[in-house]
């Protein structure tokens, strides 16, 4: 896992680095829907083994090819190489060590292990993103079980598993720990279904464990003290991230673990760890590069003896610290302790810290090298102005809402956005929650920040127009797609007519991911996008007036997409059936929000469709109907 300092905008910086970004492979799944193997005798491939029937030269060529192909790391290049001819297909398959499965149901585990026999690293993604917001009924699927069962036998040397939005059980983790003796890296992002017993199995049996990262992952506390299950003696741990784990932690065991992990660089603690305990860890591990501070406060009044602790020096000793997060129960009086390290920081995540404007300004004024900042909107427009004044190098900004409701007074607005656009011209990625916005500010950002790759604006009031002019937000988003020539990811909100979609279809030629909610007037809107955006991979739409006609206008493109999600739109079963008929290799799932109900013949609650080589899955729950 390469963790370089060069900022990658698509990388979720506070989730462990995705070494396999989707960006590398816009057009093909991995593996691609297999065409019939190309003609072995091809004029173009003079060296193809089949032309020269001598087995000896066959083998030599293949060996050479193997050696050469090992230098190909980028997925897209590998996919291309595999299509040259049968021999290249075979050799590429033998030399592929990293497999990326963007949708766990697009291909069966057996098929993957059959084609790629020598895999060391696997990335598997499950549920679509809207599942994070309760739009997908529970127990839909995305089980890791079948994967670990198959890979356990096929890949005994597997070293790395990265899962996103998958469900896994304790048993799966035990099987993982038992099957892979050389296992090194486990990264679980937005996963659930297991408990501390599963973690204990991994901790105790994976003797070469380097990375154990749990980000936004739910872990059930079943009483097992997993931290104590790491083996005695020195460990290979380089990264231990458990800031989302809402379980009590045996601190003595944790401390001992940190002490005997000399390679530890990344440590993100959960909010059970108090600032006093943090202190003890930090003084023992001053070479950390990434630190999640846990509570950064303490639940009970401090023992008077503890108050003498010199937090400031402890932190200033961490000369290598570049990424700071946590502050889960922050007590602002302790914040000055980190001022001295702020100048080195490249990433700062205060998105769980409800600190006031003044406190924030005192902190941010030191962060001149900051490239990634996550905050709560409680810092207000004024705080964002302070960011704009100091963080000239900012690449990524995320502003989360403290009160995630509609119709409340919001502390940030177009003022903050405008300030950021003026102060941070290198901005590449922004996620901004607000209650009100203007087209002018969005247009300004489109002009001031030409390097934008990700633009996600969430105006929390549904159908909110520009609050000064009363106009729809079409022009703002239109300017973004027009002026930001590198834009690949877009999330729109506010009052939007079909015009906004026309802009996106016309100018959003590189857009791969589009997120739509409560927007548009008619089918025409969606048609613009499906017809105009050739690189579109992931389209998620909710509560928008798009119906069958719009759906059918995308038939030419659906095989090129990772998935399409449409919930509470105006689709009918007939329309979806037509798509399923026209595109047999598409899995068309209709999900119902009403359990145990006969599916209403007319309306469709959720349409979730994705290309698949394996046909309809056999683990679909009752509320899923696969056409």
């Amino acid at each position, binding site marked *: 896992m390469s963790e370089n300092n060069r900022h990658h905008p698509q990388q979720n910086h506070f989730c462990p680095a995705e070494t396999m970004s989707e960006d590398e492979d816009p057009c093909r799944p991995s593996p691609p829907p297999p065409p019939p193997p190309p003609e072995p005798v091809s004029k173009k491939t003079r060296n193809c083994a089949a032309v020269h029937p001598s087995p000896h030269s066959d083998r030599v060529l293949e060996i050479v090819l193997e050696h050469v192909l090992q230098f190909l790391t980028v997925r897209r290049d590998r996919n291309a190489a595999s299509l040259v001819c049968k021999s290249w297909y075979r050799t590429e398959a033998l030399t592929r060590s990293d497999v990326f499965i963007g949708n766990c149901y697009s291909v069966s585990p057996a098929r993957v292990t059959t084609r790629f026999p020598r895999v060391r690293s696997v990335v598997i993604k499950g549920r679509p993103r*809207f599942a*994070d*917001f*309760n*739009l997908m*009924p*529970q*127990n839909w699927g995305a089980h890791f079980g079948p994967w670990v069962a198959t890979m356990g036998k096929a890949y005994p040397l597997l070293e790395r598993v990265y899962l996103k939005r998958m469900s896994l059980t304790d048993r799966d983790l035990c099987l993982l720990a038992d099957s892979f003796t050389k296992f090194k890296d486990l990264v679980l992002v937005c996963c659930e279904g297991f408990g501390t017993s599963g973690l204990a199995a991994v901790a105790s049996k994976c003797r070469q464990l380097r990375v154990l990262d749990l980000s*936004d992952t*739910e872990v*059930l506390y079943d009483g097992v003290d997993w931290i104590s299950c790491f083996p005695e003696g020195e460990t290979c741990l380089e990264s231990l991230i458990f800031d*989302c784990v809402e379980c009590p932690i045996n601190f003595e065991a944790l401390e001992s673990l940190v002490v005997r992990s000399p390679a530890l660089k990344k440590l993100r603690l959960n909010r059970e760890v108090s600032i006093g305990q943090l202190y003890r860890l930090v003084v023992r591990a001053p070479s950390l590069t990434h630190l999640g501070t846990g509570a950064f406060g303490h639940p009970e009044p401090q023992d008077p003896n503890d108050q003498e602790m010199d937090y400031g020096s402890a932190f200033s000793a961490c000369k290598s610290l570049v990424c700071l997060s946590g502050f*889960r*129960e922050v007590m602002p009086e302790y914040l000055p302790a980190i001022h001295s390290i702020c100048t080195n920081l490249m990433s700062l995540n205060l*998105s*769980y810290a*409800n600190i006031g404007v003044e406190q924030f300004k005192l902190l941010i004024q030191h962060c001149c090298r900051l490239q990634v900042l996550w905050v*709560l909107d409680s810092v207000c427009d004024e705080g964002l102005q302070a960011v704009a004044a100091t963080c000239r190098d900012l690449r990524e900004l995320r502003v*989360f*809402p*403290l*009160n*995630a*409701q*509609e*119709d*409340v007074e919001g502390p940030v607005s177009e003022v903050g956005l405008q300030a950021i656009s003026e102060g941070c011209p290198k901005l590449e990625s922004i996620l901004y*929650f607000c209650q009100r916005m203007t087209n002018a500010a969005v247009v300004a950002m489109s002009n001031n920040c030409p390097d934008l790759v990700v633009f996600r604006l*969430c105006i*929390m009031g*549904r*159908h909110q127009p520009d609050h000064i002019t009363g106009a729809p937000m079409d022009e703002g988003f239109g300017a973004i797609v027009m002026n930001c020539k590198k834009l690949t990811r877009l999330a729109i909100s506010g009052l939007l007519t079909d015009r906004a979609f026309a802009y996106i279809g016309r100018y959003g030629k590189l857009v791969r991911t589009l997120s739509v*909610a*409560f927007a548009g007037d008619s089918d025409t809107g969606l048609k613009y996008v499906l017809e105009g955006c050739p690189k579109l991979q992931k389209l998620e739409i*909710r*509560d*928008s*007036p798009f119906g069958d006609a719009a759906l059918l206008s995308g038939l030419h493109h659906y095989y090129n997409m990772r998935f399409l999600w449409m*919930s*509470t739109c*105006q689709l009918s079963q007939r329309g979806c059936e037509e798509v399923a008929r026209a595109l047999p290799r598409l899995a068309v799932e209709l999900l119902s*929000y*009403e*359990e145990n109900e006969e599916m209403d013949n007319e*309306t469709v*609650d959720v349409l979730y469709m994705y290309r698949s080589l394996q046909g309809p899955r056999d683990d679909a729950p009752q509320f899923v109907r696969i056409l």
Partner: protein
Amino acid sequence: MEVSRRMVNLFGGGGIGRDLNLNLKETELCLGLPGGGGSEGAPKTNGKRGFSETVDLKLNLQTKEAAPLDLKEAQSKNGLKEKNPLTAHDSIKDPAKPPAKAQVVGWPPVRSYRKNMMANKSSKDEGSADQKPSTASMAAFVKVSMDGAPYLRKVDLKMYNSYDQLSDALGKMFSSFTMGNYGAQEMIDFMNESKLMDLLNSSEYVPTYEDKDGDWMLVGDVPWEMFVESCKRLRIMKGSEAIGLAPRAMEKCKSRS
């Protein structure tokens, strides 16, 4: 097994509470309903509420409040939040306050973990626990486990306004699992020691919860709002297993009568 009905009776069905021992009504403390208005009369400011008031709340069906524009109507019989694309905050009991705008599932698109963390934070920062936080409508998801059921569920306690509603929802949620035999449809009288002990000695299921202090309590002891604020996790366990929790309920019984 009509679990929901039985579970409703656990907390006290609508109307039955009125026939309770008059001693209960003499308990002098009560708590206003959400928002300060109350269908039970003038609220008193002290924290505790008479038991009659906890059980008198009628089962409130979720209204199909007019949803803006293109959202589907919720089916009120299905109390499961995660299944409904639209849920409405019940404002029937609250004539004083304007009806809350219908909160839409999954909007704004903030993950539950973050929402819950922020909800905890805001109410803490606003000081007194009695003060109704402005984040009142924020979700309070808790896990619900039932002994014997193969997987856990989650409910958003803020979606309900009373124990009745919650028990109804829980009943539906776990109705597919056999719950064992239920005896006569008697309401569990939390003030009646012997009846409580009967239940806890039986193989019937009782709902329990883990509160902020980490203690496991029987559901139904404290006023609803207090419960929502302090409940971290729900567990539906066999009455016989919940015996260890009974002493606390007993203490509360004794302190009230």
